[in-house]
Each structure stands twice: as C-alpha cells, then as structure tokens.
C-alpha cells in the first residue's frame, strides 16, 4: 500500500518551481539547544565509559564517575586489556569480526535472493511461507537455546564457529525489508526486458537486480552486523572454548571474575572490562559512520511500505 495524501494538498499547484529541493527555513536556536540536550543524554553513558577507561581499579571505586582522575591511564589500560592472558581479547575481537561479517554478508545475500523471489514471483504457498517466517520471530529464542543446542550437538556443530554463524544467517527482518525493497527498486519492465534479451533468471538477479538492491542490502548487512556483534546468549551457550568466544561473551567472562567472588576472584579485572567494552564498540560505530548514506535509503524503503 502506498502513502495516502490528504486531498487538500494534492491539488495541483501553480507558480514557479522552487529554486532549491527543499525550502531552507530559518534555524531555530531553542530547537538546536533542546536537541543538544537530548544528545547529551544519549552520550552520557558513553562519556562515563570513556572516563572510566582511563582509571585504575582504585580510582574506579573512589573517584567521581563522570570526571577523570588525577592520573589518567587510558593507554596502560588498553595495553593491559589487549595483552591479558596472551592477547585473548584481540582474538575475541577478531572472532566477533569474523562471525559478524560472515553472518551479515551471508544473511544479506540470502535475504536479498529470497526477498527478490517473494517480491517478483508467485508460486504455490509463497504467502504462507512468508507469513510463517514473520510469525516465527515472535516466539522468544531464550528457551529454544537448549533444543537448538541439543540439535546442534547431534551434528557436531557445538563449540564451533558455525554454531554462532549459522543461526545468524536467517534474518526474518532482513527478508521482510528486502521483499519490500525489491518490489520498488527492481522495476518489472527491467526484468521483462532482460528476459526478452534471453538472460537467465540467475543472471538477471546477479547481474542486474542485485545492484539495484544495493542500499537495501547494505541495510541488512549493517543490522545483522549489529545483531551478531551484540549477540551474547547464543554464543554463551554454544561455545565452551574461550578461543572461540566473541567479545561480548569474553567481556562477560572477565566481569564474572570480578563479580562472582570466591577463590580466584579479582576486582583487577574491572578496568579491563571497562576498557574492553569501549574498544568493542568502536568498530561498529565506525562502520555505521562510513556506511550511513546507504542504510538510510535502505530503511526508507522498508518503512514507507508494508
């Protein structure tokens, strides 16, 4: 369905065309100030994280949380985090990168193909299948963890990278988005013309449609990237070997060393947890900054239509 326009404004407008695409109204200072206040709220916890990353264990407990201590040691903390236990943190970051990138690209391609299939072809049960996928999102996955584990164990997937990657490849939201996007972005006439030229369906998809789907694709890549990057519960259950941990599970295991108490507990892990947290979100933020042009247009299509 498309956006309905109120009748009053849909009347044809006479007069000269506007010189710029959008009339640029006067800047509003109160609005700018209000929005910066909101911005401050959203950045406050991150500021705390940055400040805390410069502190040693004692200062974490004894100095004011939102300002630096007299002896900042960000570099020392970073060094401690990346060298602890033979550099296992770097390994976790690389694992996360691997899981997230493979999952994201794989999920986007699978969703693009399926979305294109659902949008441009009619076949038996297509609507039912599509609804099934969307409906499946609504059952919470936490309690499915054990059944999934038991099934994965049967085929020897537990404690491997695949146990994390495979489930992330299926992204129902991605499918939804790509279906909506493909509907508009790939005109039927283009497909028809290609067919008349004798191109096979696969070639039409890979050679023509995929390029038109690029912004939607990037959007799915980014959102799967975030989902996999932030995934905690599934890898926690699936992985036993710390060498395979993604960074979320690794950080949580460090935090547990400080928070569980008992023999072997140490609060010395807290600065590492804090600094590690900071390091772990930097790559994602950068990815979003670099790719923002694409994902916004991709989202626009997904949200205007249903």
């Amino acid at each position, binding site marked *: 369905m498309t956006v309905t326009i109120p009748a009053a404004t849909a009347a044809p407008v006479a007069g000269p065309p506007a010189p710029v695409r959008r009339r640029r109204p006067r800047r509003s200072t109160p609005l700018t100030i209000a929005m910066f206040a909101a911005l401050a709220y959203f950045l406050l916890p991150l500021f705390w994280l940055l400040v805390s990353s410069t502190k040693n264990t004692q200062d974490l407990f004894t100095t004011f*949380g939102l300002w630096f201590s007299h002896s900042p040691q960000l570099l020392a903390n970073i060094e401690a985090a990346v060298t602890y236990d033979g550099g296992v943190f770097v390994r976790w970051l690389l694992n996360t990168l691997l899981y997230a990138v493979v999952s994201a690209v794989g999920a986007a391609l699978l969703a693009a193909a399926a979305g294109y*299939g659902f949008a441009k072809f009619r076949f038996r049960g297509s609507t039912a299948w599509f609804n099934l996928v969307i409906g499946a999102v609504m059952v919470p996955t936490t309690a499915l963890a054990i059944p999934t584990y038991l099934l994965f164990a049967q085929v020897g997937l537990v404690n491997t990278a695949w146990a994390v990657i495979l489930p992330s490849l299926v992204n129902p939201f991605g499918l939804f988005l790509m279906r909506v996007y493909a509907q508009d972005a790939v005109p039927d006439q283009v497909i028809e013309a290609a067919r008349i030229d004798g191109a096979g369906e696969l070639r039409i998809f890979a050679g023509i449609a995929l390029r038109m789907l690029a912004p939607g694709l990037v959007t799915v890549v980014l959102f799967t990237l975030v989902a996999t990057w932030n995934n905690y519960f599934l890898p926690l259950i699936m992985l036993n070997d710390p060498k395979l941990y993604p960074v979320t599970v690794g950080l949580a295991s460090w935090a547990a060393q400080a928070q569980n108490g008992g023999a072997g507990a140490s609060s010395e892990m807290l600065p590492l947890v804090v600094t590690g947290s900071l390091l772990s979100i930097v790559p994602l933020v950068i990815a979003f900054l670099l790719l923002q042009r694409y994902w916004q247009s991709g989202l626009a299509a997904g949200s205007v239509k249903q």
Partner: protein
Amino acid sequence: MSVVSAGPRRAGLLFVTPFMVLFLLLFLTPLGYAAYLSLFQHKLIGGTTFVGLDNYAKAVTDPQFLRGVLRVATFFVIQVPLMLVLALLFALALDSGLMRLARVVRLGIFVPYAVPSVVAALMWGYLYGPDYGPFAQLGRLLHVPVPRFLSETWMLGSLSNVVSWEFVGYNMIILYAALRSVSPELYEAAAVDGAGAWRIAWSIKLPALRPALVLTLLFSVIGSFQLFNEPKLLQPLAPDVIDSGFTANLYAYSLAFTGQQVNYAATVSFLLGLVIVAVSYGFLFASNRRRAV
C-alpha cells in the same frame, strides 16, 4: 504487480529455497523440537514421561508466569509510547531543517544502538548506583534527593530508560528515513497554502509516517514482551527486585537453566509467543481498520 509468467515460477522457488532451507533447519526444527519437548515432563527422580497438554494447563494458571506477562505488558504500556514519541519528535526535528548540526545530533542519538546490551547494562548499572553512582553523588553534593533507581518502585522506570536509551535512535532513524522519502512537492504545496511548520508536521508528515510507525510499534511489541537482556544483566545489582520470574522470558530462562525444567520452559516460551502474536495482530488489525475508515 509481479511478473507472473509460467516459466519463472520455478525460478522464484530457486531464489527462496536457500533462505527457507536454513530457516527450516535452524528456526523451525528447534521450534518443532521445543514443541515436542513441551509435551513431556522430566523429573530428577523418575525420568521423562509424556504428559500431553498438562504443561500448558499448568502454565495458564501459573501465577509466576502470569505476573511476568503482566509486568512486560505494563512495561510495554509505559516504555513504548515514551520511546516512540521521543523518536518521532527527534525525527521531525531533524527533518524540519530548523536546527544546526543535525548530522552530528542524528548520529549521536543513533550510536547507542550499536552498543551491546551487555555493555549498556554495565554502564547504566554503574550510573544508577545508590552510593557511588554519579547521579547519587551529584545529588548529595547539591542536596537534591535522587531516586533509588534500583529499588522496586523505580526499577520498571530504570529499565525503560535503558531500553529507550538503546532504541530511541534506532526508531528515530526508521521514522526519519520515512520522512525523507516524502515528496518535497507536498511541502511546497502546503507552504503555498499557508500552512506553518506544525501544521505541515500534523497534516502531511504524520500521515506519511503511519506505515513506519506501525512497523516500529510491531518491533516494540516483540522487544517488550520478550524483554530479557536488560533485567538479566541488572539482576546482580538488584537481586531483591528482579526475581527469576520478573519478565516472562526471564521466567522461561530460569526454568530451563536454574530449575532444569526444559519441558516446562518450552511451554512457557510458546505461550509467550502466542501472546506476542495476538498483540501484534491486534495492532495490525486496529491500524488497518482505522485507515479503511
């Protein structure tokens, strides 16, 4: 609207198959397995027995489960309007062109979405601290009473804050992207008709946003009713407030991992899924009807 000729029917299947096969293997099979498990009962002494729908009968009268569902429903009613209204206001403000440095603000508000909930809970947990949290310290310094964020009274609000912090930006971006795709001629027309900024927002932008709003609302239904990560991660800081059945999903988790009642946990998950489906379709139905009027 679609290219429906006899030949490419099979091609459609071809494109859909890889996704659907994985969906079947990785989503539906565990789901089916869990459904199967929900028909059994396992006891430490006595082993596994088939109990039919007994688990379901038990769950619908289980006060802990019902309390958990009620709590996430309350959370939904409090948090989602707040989050979506904020997201909407921010999106409209950014789209109005009335403010300076809009790009910076837009990205800044969106950044929390990229922060793992593990890290978000760590940060907010510290900020909420009753003795050494910065808010409490500032409050003491200025002799202003600061709420005890982690107490029973405030917990739902504190959780709402964390979840809103994480997702306002995400929803804002969806709404903002939808606004950007509204044809500029509409604005021109309205301006010529003498409509002010508020009038344009109300008469043109809001109707244009309806599909996007319904979408964000649906995501919020799922997110709220499945609420798990944030309460789970704040639990160590407030064990007296966040109990094992605080949210319905947390209850399912506790049953599976603490109580070793995998079968009953599966039952609870399915029922929760059912609640979510019902609420979601309720909203879809309502929004479609209103549009038809």
